[in-house]
């Protein structure tokens, strides 16, 4: 079960947490720094100048003006396409789609144009653009505003995919995304926006970057490897805490980017623990969970002590009713149960 209590939406903040940046302010701060650094960085999206629904772009229009922070009409095809063209023309556009699910509206501009134009032109153009996609379930936002569709885009060559899970990563990854010369999809889980996370001093450094393709080991362990993304990282950590009381040692790995994917860290961990569970909100069929399982199975089959497992959306639209939404999502308790079953075999 998905545990809503893990993510206090605007609830009381403990005194020691007051200094911790929220996830959304970390993204906004990263973008602000990159806009100061590079006049070619521009923003496009619906309502981003005055009142974007999740507030990530707050203050950017006031500082950088309406030429660089451009409110757009509801025209995802034209806006994503314009970002592609502006990128070819030497800008570094950052597009916010109000909900990541809306990427479907403009999928041709992403998968055929942004992702392929460099290849098709024999390397004559580059397409440095970032599309920010608020994603994920747990807020009762309904089936068409709650999906985790990154598997669609990781499937297509030419698109990088970032999945930040903490404030530190959110800032370091958005800055890397903006400086990257390739198209990047930046998935922001809506349940994380208002959460606060401790950061290291490097967070304040204007050149603080988190490189793509380097997973984070969120918790070391020896009995099982859990690979999880976005909100599921925190559910996996909560599960590891529960199991630690039983003497079970869980290693939690957060890939941070799906493209490129740090299989080396994941496979290395499985060689140590001998067990693998992948947890993600994505639909299980052709989902990223299966891709990670396949990669580990191909390269470390003999290290596996039990069949690897996946948790995810079993294959229904994310329900609008909160009780049903919780039921279809993986969460701490389901992770604990799966791990206990795996360790029993």
């Amino acid at each position, binding site marked *: 079960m998905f545990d809503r209590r893990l993510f206090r939406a605007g609830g009381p903040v403990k005194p020691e947490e007051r200094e911790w940046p929220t996830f959304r302010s970390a993204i906004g701060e990263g973008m602000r720094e990159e806009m100061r650094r590079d006049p070619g960085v521009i923003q496009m999206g619906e309502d981003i100048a005055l009142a974007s629904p999740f507030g990530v772009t707050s203050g950017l229009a006031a500082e950088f003006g309406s030429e660089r922070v451009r409110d757009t009409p509801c025209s995802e095809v*034209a806006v994503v396409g314009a970002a592609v063209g502006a*990128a070819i023309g030497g800008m570094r556009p950052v597009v916010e789609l109000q909900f990541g699910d809306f990427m479907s509206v403009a999928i041709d501009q992403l998968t055929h144009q942004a992702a392929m134009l460099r290849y098709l032109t024999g390397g004559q153009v580059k397409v440095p653009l970032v599309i920010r996609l608020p994603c994920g379930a747990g807020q009762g936002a309904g089936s068409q505003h709650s999906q985790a569709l990154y598997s669609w885009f990781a499937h297509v060559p030419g698109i990088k995919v970032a999945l930040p899970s903490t404030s530190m990563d959110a800032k370091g990854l958005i800055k890397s995304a903006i400086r990257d010369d*390739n198209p990047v999809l930046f998935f922001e889980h809506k349940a994380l926006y208002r959460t606060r996370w401790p950061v290291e001093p490097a967070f304040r450094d204007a050149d603080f970057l988190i490189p793509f393709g380097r997973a984070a080991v969120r918790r070391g362990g020896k009995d099982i490897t859990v690979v999880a993304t976005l909100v599921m990282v925190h559910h996996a950590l909560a599960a590891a805490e529960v199991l630690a009381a039983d003497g079970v040692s869980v290693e939690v790995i957060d890939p941070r980017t799906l493209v490129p994917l740090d299989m080396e860290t994941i496979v290395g961990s499985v060689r140590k623990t001998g067990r693998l569970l992948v947890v993600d909100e994505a639909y299980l069929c052709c989902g990223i969970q299966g891709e990670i399982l396949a990669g580990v199975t191909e390269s470390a089959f003999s290290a596996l002590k039990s069949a690897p497992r996946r948790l995810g959306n079993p294959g229904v639209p994310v329900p609008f009713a909160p009780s049903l939404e919780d039921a279809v999502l993986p969460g701490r308790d389901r992770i604990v149960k799966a791990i206990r079953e795996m360790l029993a075999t």
Partner: protein
Amino acid sequence: MSEAQADDAMKLGLLRTMLLIRKLETAWGDAYFNEEIGGIPPSLSTGQEAVSAGACAALEQGDYVFTTHRGQAPQVARGLDPKRIMAELYCRRDGYNKGKSYHVTDVTRGVIGMGGIVAAQVPVAGGMALAQKLKGGGRVSVAFFGDGASNEGAVHETANLAAMWTLPLILLCENNGYCITLPVAAAVKTASIADRAAGYGLPGVTVDGNDALAVRDAVAAAVARARSGGGATLIDAKTLRLGGHLCHDAQGYRSKEELAAAWERCPIKRLRERLLAEALLTAEAYARLEAEVDGEVAAAVEFARQSPAPQVREAYEDLWA
């Protein structure tokens, strides 16, 4: 050179460009029928040469054009090297894109080859226009698209966005009368595609797309407006496709009479007759021009034939920047 002389040279240049487009593309079609090249059959611009020749004559270095699947005409009209165009169409390494794709591109001359997805180039051209506007310098972008593409949402959205942002964009509909087999009159219920411009708050211009000089003048006016900050223009350049959708298309869906009438309006024939009547051209000079273009095309074909195929490792290159 006086203004009149420059104008005469421009007219002769348009004729030469159209001839080169026609003959280069014919040679490409021949290469398909001769089985020198395979793959998807060539999409030729036969009969539509005046649109690209006229439009590109109104552009300068630094301007961009975004092409369609029928994109060889603007490539030639922008001054790309016929040898390297042909090498690309033969999938050879000396082609503009290293022989790896159909999308002939030359960023140094502002040609971005698109067209695999109908109308997808139009929003991208809008984005280039945005970059040009933000950078300053008065550069413009031209989005070529067909009457078929005119019904795509990508065109409608981009036209609206171009109006909202006053983009230096020319939305140039190369209306050849057919979306493969579907006549434009069946699929567009306004007299001109340019009539739709009013719905976006843009100026709309209809021009005889088989008159290279008229196209040049219409595009030049739109370019001047865009350069001076006046924003985008939607142009319906009404031309006629003389060949099939692709070169193997026998056009069973068009009558002999319709095609014969279309050939009477051939833009090369029209400009040639006009220049002969204006005494800017003689029959002998035209014969020399044709022979010169034939030689250029033969050299392009030979160059393509001699160029090697890409190496296998190149299939894995140029994906990531």
